[in-house]
């Protein structure tokens, strides 16, 4: 029920943001943004959040035990990078474990969860897709750059999870729906 409401609300929110009107929003501030897959996309989302003046903290490697009620919304920037994982010294398996534990804790804390996939087709593949599936199943809303959903994976996962999915043409266009999701 909650997700159906969100679906409608977010559609209206995005429509409103496109038309420049004040829209409905579900996510509360402050947000906590983390990377799921350790790609460089994390840095870009920080820029978008700053531009949208959304209060946030950022920790690409935050673990479940580090999550607390001081953050109201969890933003997951998903997309695997072998280089990023290597630099962080963690395996893909460990990243998946961290993700699942994080999502479980976010649910316990009743946080809203937003998934962002902004790396397009090049940020897809077996490793990314495993992480994407975990994130989408536990999210309330997702924003993706359309070239990352050419095979319809996000569309199918959003339908399965009964959440709203906003597709944008490019990274820079992800700022508007992201801002619109916040109260």
């Amino acid at each position, binding site marked *: 029920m909650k997700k159906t409401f969100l679906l409608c609300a977010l559609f209206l929110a995005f429509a409103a943001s496109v038309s420049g009107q004040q829209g409905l929003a579900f996510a509360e501030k402050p947000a906590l943004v983390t990377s799921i897959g350790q790609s*460089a*996309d994390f840095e*870009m989302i920080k*820029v978008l959040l700053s531009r949208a003046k959304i209060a946030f903290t950022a920790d690409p490697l935050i673990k479940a035990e580090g999550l607390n009620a001081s953050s109201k919304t969890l933003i997951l920037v998903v997309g695997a990078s*072998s280089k990023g994982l290597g630099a962080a010294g963690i395996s893909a398996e460990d990243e998946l474990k961290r993700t699942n534990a994080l999502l479980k804790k976010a649910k316990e804390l009743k946080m809203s969860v937003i998934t962002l996939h902004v790396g397009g087709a090049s940020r897809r*593949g077996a*490793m990314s897709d495993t992480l994407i599936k975990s994130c989408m199943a536990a999210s309330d809303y997702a924003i993706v750059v359309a070239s990352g959903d050419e095979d319809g994976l996000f569309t199918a996962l959003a339908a399965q999870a009964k959440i709203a999915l906003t597709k944008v043409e*490019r*990274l820079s266009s992800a700022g508007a729906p992201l801002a619109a999701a916040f109260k």
Partner: protein
Amino acid sequence: MKGLKRCISIALVALFLAASLGITFAQKAPTVIPEVVSSQGMVASAHPLASQIGLGILKAGGNAVDAVVATAFANSVVEPNANGIGGEGYIVIYLKGENKATSIDYRSRASFNKAAPDERWPAAGHRSVAVPGTVAGLALALEKYGTMSLAQVIAPAIKLAEEGFVVSETLAGVIADNFKRAMPNAYLMSIIAPSGLPLEAGEIYKNPDLAKTLRLIAQEGSDAFYKGEIAKAIAADMKANKGLIDENDLATYKAIEREPASGTYRGYDIVSAPAPVGGFLLIQSLNMLENYNLKFLGFDSAMKLHLFSEVLARAFDDYYDVLGDPDFVDVPMKALTSQGYANAKAASIKLDAMTLKYEKVNPNSEHWSTTHMSVVDKAGNVVALTQTLSSFFGAAVAVPGTGIILNNEMGNFNGKKGSSAYLPGKRMNTTIAPTLIMKDGQSFATLGTPGAMRIIPTLTQIVTNLIDYGMGIQEAIEAPRMYCTYLQGPGKTTIELEGALFPKKTLDDLTLLGYKVKSYDKRDLYFGGVQGIIIKEGKLYGGADPRRDGAVFGY
């Protein structure tokens, strides 16, 4: 332990049988990119716009050197992550009329200003920058072996920098990956992220300051870069940011013509770039492989991949221990490329067991931001050119007002003592290896790739794909690749490969041999971006790498 040995023995028997019964020879599968065939001239580079420019020069009557220099300047604009006039490189040239092979070393060089005794080279920033060689190297090649003026061959690059070009998915991905590294340098950010966010695929990349710089070089020659106002701008930026390079370093930089490294493989002559770069590693690896029947082992068997790991690890011993700047270190190039030396090294290889331990320096100390181009002209002159900034976007430093992105080559010095250690004014090692292959006195191929430590493994695979497995150039380029040069014994040695393109059994067999398998789920630019041309029966066959934005054009 006994059980493990038994498992390995059984697996090896199975591997042997599989290799005997199911030998895979030439892969005749359709390629992702069609092979290009022509007869007059051909240019293969990492970007279609650069290749087109090179082809235009050939059609306008330029020779292969004119075309490669034009392609290199253009590529410096359109592949700014991988090369540029703030970087360096190496050219290998075969002049058909003179039946002569030569090479030009435009490796970067450490400043004459001494670093701190305990200096550790950073991965980014002004302190990581070495004196760039690209402009000197390209100008020398053109002056000695070209037919056109610098102004003629630079003009297309100036236009590209001024008018801009469409950002590809590949470039957009690299810009995004390096966004954080670039953030401290506001001027670099103004080039690659003018809106504050990285340029995305489909957007226009322009660098009008670089156009001005290139115009100055076109008008005044390489002195504009090394002695004129560009040199002043580089030195001033260095001084303001505690970099080592000063005007004297730039004014005294010289590209050097050197005798190429050479060897043979199964009746073919291999001509590659000599010290202080990695051509001899390719020759030595091929010399070791000549002791084995690769067709018998099969293209994609675990035993073949294991053999390559053993061979490459032995070759790379010399990269760290023997190779160095020939102006500072006695590099016994003839011995390093001799068959006898390779045979002695190969004698300890066992096909049924991994070498227990090799003491190595960190194999990932370099990066994969390099680019390669190959050109053949109608007179039969053949050129292979590889140039680089070291890491993608080099030092992540751009010189204000010039559009020049600087290299981070200093990190390629290795340790405090030995052939590859730092000394003021010295050229550092690298694995780049632009290579020509000849057969019976005729050109057969021009090849090269970026890929840092993957360069030699990749080229070794490409050469054997062509010669042992009889593949065409495009097929050889697209065939799946492996990388392992760092043997630590069973359970501790990682082999990286494009696992999704190998049979699952091969991956399982490698695990049984004791390898930790790191599998990539598609062709990945980590394994390089080969550009190559082969010449057969009067026709040119060009191949470009789908792992990057490679493109071949011929006429």
